[in-house]
């Protein structure tokens, strides 16, 4: 409330600097630099701590699940060969060692921490044994990050523009109707949008391919045909994310802009005779951006998580498809790896946000 009426972007310090002796200023700068360093160190410490906590919780979670990977593996064999495979104690011991299940819980925990956290090694996979689980995940990750990361960015920019327009024309007839429509649709899950889009564009209109990341006839190469195919295949899965999340961005931007438009400094800017475009760009958008940048950071963190099912529906070789495959074959290590990588991306995005936000937000020291 106290900040109302003040222009957050007005320069203040430079005026103050003249009246303060030079040495005092320098001392203050050193103090501040030390303080910033302290904050960075503390944030990094907090990050490492939460990573450790997340890994520990995941370890406990996977140990509490009934059944063991070995049973799951035996089941797997049974399903594959249609007969019971008697596992000798030798085989069991081998598998136990392979999956890090020998020794007591604390030894397992220690090994788990050193393997996953320090070496990025999550053990072998089931679905593509003996390929390591981490290998599978790191193959799937670029597809997910590339597709959904850019989808988040696109929907963010579209939402910002749409929200600005909705707020600016809020006294017309059309804008409130559109706002209500946006509000209504904002919480629809991505996978429903995906199913609708597949039906419409891949089956009724036959415009776009229904699945895969590129045409099956092509082999990955850096040529125009391949890149074109990748882009074409990414339109539908990308759009299913963009459609709904863009509505959410538009709504929140609209709310922010409407509240900024009620502020006194805007009235003052108008009274000064500034042009509408200037007011929008320099006063409205700049102040609305800050909270939206925070939101963007969080969403980018969730880009790996948000759309497992979209990836599955489109048979897109990202984390989501890997997750479903690992689930159907009860692939412990891959599942554990996916959970870990999801948490790590969210936490990392949060950390980067915490460290970068002060650079753009003048209200934070």
């Amino acid at each position: 409330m106290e900040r109302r009426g003040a222009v957050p972007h007005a320069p203040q310090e430079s005026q103050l600097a003249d009246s303060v002796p030079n040495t005092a200023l320098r001392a203050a700068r050193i103090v501040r630099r030390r303080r910033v360093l302290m904050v960075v160190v503390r944030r990094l410490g907090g990050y490492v701590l939460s990573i450790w906590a997340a890994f520990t919780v995941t370890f406990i979670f996977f140990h509490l699940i009934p059944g063991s990977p070995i049973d799951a593996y035996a089941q797997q064999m049974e399903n594959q060969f249609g007969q019971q495979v008697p596992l000798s104690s030798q085989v069991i011991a081998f598998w136990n060692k392979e999956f890090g299940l020998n020794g007591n819980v604390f030894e397992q925990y220690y090994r788990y921490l050193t393997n996953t956290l320090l070496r990025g090694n999550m053990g072998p996979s089931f679905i593509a044994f003996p390929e390591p689980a981490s290998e599978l995940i790191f193959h799937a990750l670029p597809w997910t990050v590339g597709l959904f990361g850019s989808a988040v960015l696109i929907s963010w920019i579209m939402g910002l523009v749409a929200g600005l327009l909705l707020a600016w024309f809020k006294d017309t007839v059309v804008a409130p109707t559109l706002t209500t429509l946006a509000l209504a649709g904002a919480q629809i899950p991505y996978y429903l949008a995906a199913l609708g889009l597949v039906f419409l564009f891949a089956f009724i209109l036959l415009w776009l391919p229904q699945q895969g990341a590129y045409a099956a006839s092509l082999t990955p190469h850096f040529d125009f045909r391949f890149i074109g195919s990748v882009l074409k295949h990414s339109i539908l899965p990308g759009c299913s994310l963009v459609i709904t999340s863009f509505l959410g961005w538009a709504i929140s931007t609209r709310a922010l802009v409407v509240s900024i438009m009620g502020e006194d400094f805007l009235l003052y800017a108008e009274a000064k005779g500034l042009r509408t475009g200037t007011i929008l760009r320099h006063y409205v958008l700049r102040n609305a951006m800050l909270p939206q940048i925070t939101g963007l950071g969080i969403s980018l963190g969730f880009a790996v998580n948000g759309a497992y099912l979209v990836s599955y529906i489109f048979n897109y070789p990202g984390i989501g498809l890997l997750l479903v495959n690992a689930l159907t074959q009860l692939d412990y290590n891959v599942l554990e790896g996916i959970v870990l990588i999801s948490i790590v991306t969210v936490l990392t995005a949060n950390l980067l946000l915490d460290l970068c936000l002060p650079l753009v937000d003048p209200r934070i020291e």
Partner: protein
Amino acid sequence: MSGALLETRSLSRVFWQRRLGRPVQVRAVSDVNLTLGSSGGEVLSVVGESGSGKSTLARLILGLDRPSAGNVFYRGEDVARFVGAKRRQFRREVQAVFQDPYAIFNPFYTVDRVLAQPLRRFHLASSLHEAQQRMEDSLRAVDLRPRDVLGRYPHQLSGGERQRVMLARLHLLRPQLVIADEPVSMIDAALRTMFLNILLDFRDAGMSCLFITHNLETSYYLGGNALVLYQGRVVERAPIDRILHAPKHPYTQMLVSSIPVPDPKKRWKTSLPESAIESGETVGSAGCPFLVRCPYAMEVCRRQDPPMMSVGDGQEAACFLLADRGGVRGSMAPMCKAEESG
């Protein structure tokens, strides 16, 4: 010390705020000592600007907030230790009137609730009929018609009516002590006088009052002793007419000089003497809290927090200017006569 009705000893409340991710201490109330005698009908005013910790002090005394250090004693017993029947008795005997006459009503219930709830909780009425009767009596005592008020929702009453319902509540409960936190700052002038008169009637009937205000005139109207609070600390304490006519602390002088004078030819004093401290200069936490705004700041004020110094006639102030008994430098005679401001 058991002679006092209410006493606080070195009462402090520190809030922790996060700035830049690290906790910073904010001293809302710092080392406050105050006493209200047990003779009944005593008034003690607490005067201070917004942000001086007045409301925190009220909440601490009422037991709505726990002190960080120090104690509140009611009839010689520590308020923080009250449990069960003792606590209920304390609640019954010590009541409050708050500033905002709207916020004290829960919008979910009718206005009756603030009267009926204490009757029920403190077992003050033996039957529903008696409760109803007592509620109506109390409303009439503050010039409200019961059928205009009972059964209504808070937003259906005017601000003055709502504040009078609070007075009716005092009439109903007959507390020994009332903590009034800026009770008249949000109601208009005519009603203010009526409100204060009712409060004075209650005082004459033996109710003591801790009157918290930013307005020296209203506290003068009520009489009694006063203490001046600045950034959570008591900077001056004296009978209220001494505060008005012979303020000793520079801050009190500032307060008194800024009382508007009802004379169209006289300009209200708008500018105060400039502070002796250069703007932007960093001030350590050791010195006097008023240092940055004080026109008479001296070298000693930076190093040391001034203790309370007595100047006689029951008046004392925390200022080094009084140390040499030379009185306040410069002439800052009070700008108004108290008779004019009533």
